[in-house]
């Protein structure tokens, strides 16, 4: 699944696209694999809960501010997606 946060400029647009690609009730693993595959750092935050953080790569090595995406995936006992939340912030020094 070719999901790329770099296509989106706000969280609602990214969330809508993410939910279309990985709808509620579908297996959570492909969503997690897509996030990890694009370079997100993911960590379990509880039973069925994973939080991921993705800092967009910038070609300019001197860039000191950029986009950071925050994703939470909640899954049920069958590892199906119960819900997702996405936030976007400018990460800066």
């Amino acid at each position, binding site marked *: 699944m070719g999901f790329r946060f*770099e*296509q*989106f*400029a*706000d969280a*609602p*647009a990214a969330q*809508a696209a993410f939910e279309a690609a990985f709808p509620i009730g579908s297996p959570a693993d492909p969503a997690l694999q897509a996030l990890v595959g694009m370079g997100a*750092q993911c*960590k379990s*935050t509880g039973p069925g*809960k*994973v*939080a991921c*953080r993705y*800092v967009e790569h*910038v070609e300019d*090595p*001197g*860039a*000191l*501010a*950029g*986009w*950071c995406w*925050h*994703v*939470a995936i909640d899954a049920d006992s069958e590892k199906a997606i119960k819900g*997702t*939340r*996405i*936030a*976007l*912030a*400018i*990460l*800066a*020094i």
Partner: protein
Amino acid sequence: MSAERIELMASAAGRIGGVTWHHLFLVATDASGARAYLRAGPESLPRARLAGRRTLHGDALEDYEAPAASPYGAITFSSGPYEPGGVDFDPNAANAPVASGAGAAQLWDALASQAKALAQEKIPYDPAGRGANWAVMEALRRCGVEAALPPKRWAPGVSLGSAPGSAPGAPSAPTRRVGQAAMVA
């Protein structure tokens, strides 16, 4: 919220010359375990960083208005619940204690006030100078707190002093380190 603990958090954000730089923010925890963040950042990124990107309303550049203060606009503050899928949530962030117990609630309220005051000053965001890390540390300084960074974390901007004419109690000039000596200009 009535904070019982305040921590200074450092989130890895990028690398400069092979060294990882960190984004600083504050997290308060209340008696129930609920957490809230307070963070600083620029109003926006330069126009080039929005090219080709979409919002729910279409092309992001169609809504873009260049900020007046600088390509990044002025320094802004925001706060909200610190939770998975929310702004700045980073389960791998390093933390350093700032306050706990009875003084934490008072400090959290004071930090909110100082953040508001700093935002009203419309300080141009400068990624190579007074930026988000500086602003977080400046809010702490204006509350009379000299916070230590989490160990072994590099956060550019924190060593810059307060702006001239800032609140009492804050250093009046930058401190420059020469060898092991700290010189106050």
